[in-house]
């Protein structure tokens, strides 16, 4: 269940040509080409889905549960990410999509946007209390959270210790159903995810003692099913209970709108995220109160499990402003203890780049890396199966490969 290889991205080895497209674009250098196939070093994978996006041969398969797995449960609740709403053109009524989900076999729907509005309110409370180190970094994007735990250990104390909006929605959805008298074992709550990082986070219960989702579906798979049922819906039942504030979380900057303050920074796209985190490490962003970071361009609507172009989806999300109330979920109405919104388990820093646990050995290895690197052509051609000459030198010293794999070195 917690295995990253089963819950992020898998390889269709027949389709993989061993080209270097995915390896060159992986932001954490988590891919190597070995024996002509792309191999993921899963302890470095943040689930961002960049490799899925870049593969010219569709050999990278994002992991998620098949739609029909919902029928393993008698009472099925769909918990859609707000990105799903951004996939549809000229959507006048959010309820049309939610009614479509009922048509597809769900008994009820609980929008993730509702969880988002609650998380926004708790964030505002935390910021008012002023106990957390500023700038506060959002914990909503699990790929960014993984990135910080792998590469930016000194910033871990800036991260908001709140669970994901989906985790709030999934647990509230289940409780609501149980309150109706439905036997717990009959209830299946299914998150509809825009990206592999959220599939992994929700399936493994990142920040929680046990996962809140019984399964995680992909936005694109659900979208195509919805297309065939939505036109047939005659009577639209009112299901939606969210404001635009929750739905805006689907696009970069949306979460920041919910803090009701001006000194925020919202960056999207993994390269930009890395730049912001580096600047924070250097102490350059101390005048900022809140930092929202999304691994995907444009935010969650840019997730690789969506169908629509993220920029188009973003416009659609924004346009819903006229159709929805500003805000429709409040902490006092839900009436849960504050712990409900906070991490039960703090995600741990991971030493995936550390050369050795013995400092002297690590220094020796680093010296060896510098020496090997100096001999390499610095072309970063990828022919050796490593994403850069630097990474290759590291791999050689770590015994993962041999120097003769570089064929462009001057002998």
């Amino acid at each position, binding site marked *: 269940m917690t295995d990253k290889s089963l819950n992020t991205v898998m390889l269709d080895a027949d389709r993989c040509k061993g080209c270097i497209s995915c390896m060159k674009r992986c932001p954490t250098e988590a891919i190597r080409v070995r024996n002509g196939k792309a191999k993921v070093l899963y302890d470095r994978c943040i689930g961002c889905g960049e490799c899925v996006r870049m593969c010219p041969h569709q050999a990278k398969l994002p992991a998620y549960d098949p739609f029909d797995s919902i029928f393993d449960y008698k009472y099925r609740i769909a918990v859609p990410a707000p990105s799903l709403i951004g996939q549809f053109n000229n959507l006048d009524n959010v309820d049309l999509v939610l009614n479509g989900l009922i048509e597809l076999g769900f008994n009820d729907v609980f929008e993730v946007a509702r969880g988002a509005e609650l998380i926004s309110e708790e964030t505002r409370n935390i910021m008012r209390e002023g106990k957390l180190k500023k700038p506060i970094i959002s914990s909503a994007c699990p790929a960014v959270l993984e990135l910080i735990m792998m*590469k930016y*250990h*000194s910033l*871990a104390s800036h991260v908001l210790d709140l669970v994901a909006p989906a985790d709030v929605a999934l647990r509230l959805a289940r409780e609501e159903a149980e309150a109706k008298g439905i036997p717990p074992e009959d209830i299946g709550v299914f998150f509809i995810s825009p990206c592999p990082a959220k599939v992994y986070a929700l399936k493994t219960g990142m920040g929680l003692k046990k996962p809140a989702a019984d399964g995680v579906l992909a936005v694109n798979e659900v979208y195509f099913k919805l297309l065939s049922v939505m036109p047939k819906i005659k009577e639209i039942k009112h299901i939606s209970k969210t404001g635009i504030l929750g739905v805006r979380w689907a696009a970069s900057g949306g979460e920041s709108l919910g803090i009701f303050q001006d000194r925020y920074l919202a960056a999207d796209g993994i390269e930009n995220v890395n730049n912001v985190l*580096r600047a924070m*490490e*250097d*102490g*350059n962003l101390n005048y900022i109160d809140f930092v929202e970071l999304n691994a995907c361009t444009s935010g969650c609507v840019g997730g690789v499990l969506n169908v629509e172009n993220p920029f188009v989806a973003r416009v659609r999300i924004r346009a819903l402003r006229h159709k929805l109330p500003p805000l429709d979920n409040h902490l006092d109405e839900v009436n849960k203890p504050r712990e409900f919104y906070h991490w039960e388990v703090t995600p741990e*820093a991971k*030493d995936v*780049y*550390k*050369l*050795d*646990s013995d*400092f*002297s050995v*690590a*220094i*020796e290895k*680093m*010296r060896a890396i*510098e020496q090997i690197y100096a001999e390499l052509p610095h072309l970063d051609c990828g022919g050796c199966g490593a994403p850069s000459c630097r990474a290759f030198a*590291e791999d050689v010293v770590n015994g993962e490969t041999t120097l003769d794999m570089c064929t462009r070195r001057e002998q």
Partner: protein
Amino acid sequence: MSSLHLEFDVAGNNFVSAGSASDEVKKTLKMLGVDPVAVRKVAIAMYEGEINMVIHAGGGKASVDIDTDKVKIVLADEGPGIPDISLAMKDGYSTAPDAIRDLGFGAGMGLPNMKKYTDEMHIDSTVGVGTTVTMVVNLR
């Protein structure tokens, strides 16, 4: 005793590449498994120093020695020199030109921050010859 020596050229008047030396050092320290607090101290102090060389001295050289017990950073330039070091160390004192301030630099916090985040700091400066800043961050 194991130690590692790194050297970098810091290009003058190039804000695009400014910070690249400290970034390399940061990456190296992380791979060595140095405590995150110490990494952050080195990052902040070295970044400030690097930017100073870019703004005031037309670049210079950075050399870093990493030992089991400390990181020593030496930033040497052949810039105009600092006439009054104690004045330069005051919070908010800056001689950065307006064009640099418009870029968001030159708030006069560079040297004070470098001192704040390091365990030792010495400045050797001769007007018309150059400045050498030596900083040490202890590793526990």
